[in-house]
């Protein structure tokens, strides 16, 4: 019997090295600087919740961390090893897409709008990464996909297509799809923002379970309750930089920065 623990990070680096780290991350879109030097690190088994106003660059940070888009400047390190790009002759050189694809395999990503593949049923959605990325044989992939679906409570929905699942179920399939590849870190981009309120709980439950089992997670969210309960640290992100970072209790009860106090007044 597999449990989610099996999916949690395989080897890693020396103690003290963060699982994922970004240094001085910059990104500009159409002349507008969206990331202005983000410094962020997460250790193995840690859960970090990222809060912040709309348009502040949270999704951009996650997309860059997941190597889905090139950074303009800065470095991304997985277990202390730089990924995505290298410096050659003082200039940043991004790796070609095929190499990035390989490096992405250690990083799982869950999107706000689920982005399940509509032409595949739930089981095939979860199995696709195994067969096409990890070259797992079809039958074994289906078996592992089925187990992972069962772990997120959808063992009875394996032959349903995304259009036949509720939003909460779709997002759980999306989590299983990322998880089945044994990523070292999972990135969540507002995983419950597109859900009807009554469906939020089932997704948060799965994520909390995952956190309890030791998965390394970065969760961009507006769910204060989740941040309080599941996160080891809460981060306020604003206007392209990290403003404040603290343990949940401290963050919510005794924020240090004026910007954080302001933000929390809006959320509460």
């Amino acid at each position: 019997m597999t449990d989610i623990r099996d999916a949690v990070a395989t080897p890693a680096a020396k103690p003290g090295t963060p699982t994922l780290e970004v240094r001085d991350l910059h990104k500009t879109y159409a002349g507008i600087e969206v990331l202005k030097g983000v410094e962020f690190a997460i250790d193995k088994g840690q859960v970090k919740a990222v809060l912040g106003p709309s348009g502040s660059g949270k999704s951009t940070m996650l997309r860059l961390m997941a190597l889905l888009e090139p950074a303009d400047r800065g470095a991304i390190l997985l277990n202390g090893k730089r990924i995505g790009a290298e410096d050659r002759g003082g200039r940043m050189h991004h790796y070609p897409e095929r190499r990035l694809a390989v490096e992405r395999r250690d990083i799982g990503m869950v999107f706000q709008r689920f982005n399940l593949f509509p032409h595949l049923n739930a089981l095939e959605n979860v199995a696709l990464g195994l067969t096409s990325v990890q070259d797992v044989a079809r039958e074994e992939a289906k078996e592992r996909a089925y187990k992972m679906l069962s772990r997120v409570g959808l063992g009875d929905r394996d032959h349903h297509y995304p259009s036949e699942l509720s939003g909460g179920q779709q997002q759980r399939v999306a989590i299983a799809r990322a998880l089945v590849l044994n990523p070292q870190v999972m990135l969540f981009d507002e995983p419950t923002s597109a859900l009807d309120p009554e469906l939020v709980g089932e997704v948060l439950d799965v994520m909390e379970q995952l956190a309890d089992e030791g998965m390394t997670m970065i969760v961009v969210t507006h769910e204060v309750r989740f941040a309080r309960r599941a996160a080891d640290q809460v981060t306020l992100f604003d206007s392209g930089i990290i403003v404040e970072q603290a343990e949940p209790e401290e963050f919510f009860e005794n924020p240090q920065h004026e910007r954080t106090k302001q933000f929390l007044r809006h959320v509460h």
Partner: protein
Amino acid sequence: MLFDPEIFFQQLINPAYLWGALLSIAVAAVSLIIATVIGFFIALGNTSKKPYYRGPAAIYTWFFRAIPALLLLLIMWNALPQLIPALKADWYTPFIAASVGLGLVESAFMAEIIRSALNSVDDGQALAGRALGMKPAAVMIKVVLPQAIRTALPPTGNEFIGLIKYSSLASVISLRELLTTAQIGVNITFRYAEYYAVAIIYYLVIVTLVTLLQSKVEKRFAWSSRNAPKRSVRTLGTQTVAVATAASRRRAADEPDETAETDDELAAREAAEAAEARLEKKGATE
């Protein structure tokens, strides 16, 4: 000279018509295959961000959109063998010349259909595939194409029907397809009404069959657990490309543009990027 049912029925079962009909379908099918393959790469070029892919693709589309099919067929059959002696050989038949000629003309239109179908696939799809660690080719083949094919099927069916009709142009290069068969009969007997009526019947039957086939194929792309077959959609996808390989022009030339506008709102930056990466890969190996 009244309509003589006897002549009509006699011709209806004349094997020459059946042969002509099969030839029309075959020319249409082969040229649609050619057009789909070329059209796919032209569509990738058109959606590329790199000018050195976009330019040639645009010139190709511009050229073959402008050339009348009839002129191209005449060039294929009369002019090319003069320029390329190898084409004087026996294997270069009117069938091949017609299939390639119509395929080239058609490819400009298929490129538009395929481009708009690729664009209609949500950005998030390729993004999710890439996030899983899939390489550009896998993202294209396993994620984007199966969804694009569903969008491209209806207009491609129209193109196939159009190509069956356009195959009659190949009479100028002495291909005995359906309409030419009727015309030859007319030239001998002057029984216009009866011979043309037979041709009408054949065209009606062919188009009816194609329409039935098309709706059958489209049903397989319903993506629902109720009527979906056991096998994965991916295998069906390849099957479909093979089956629906052939097609029309004017009407369809307008259609994809209409869909393209609404689809563009959804946009396909990711699909384009994946497509581009594919081209990049090709370029890199050269």
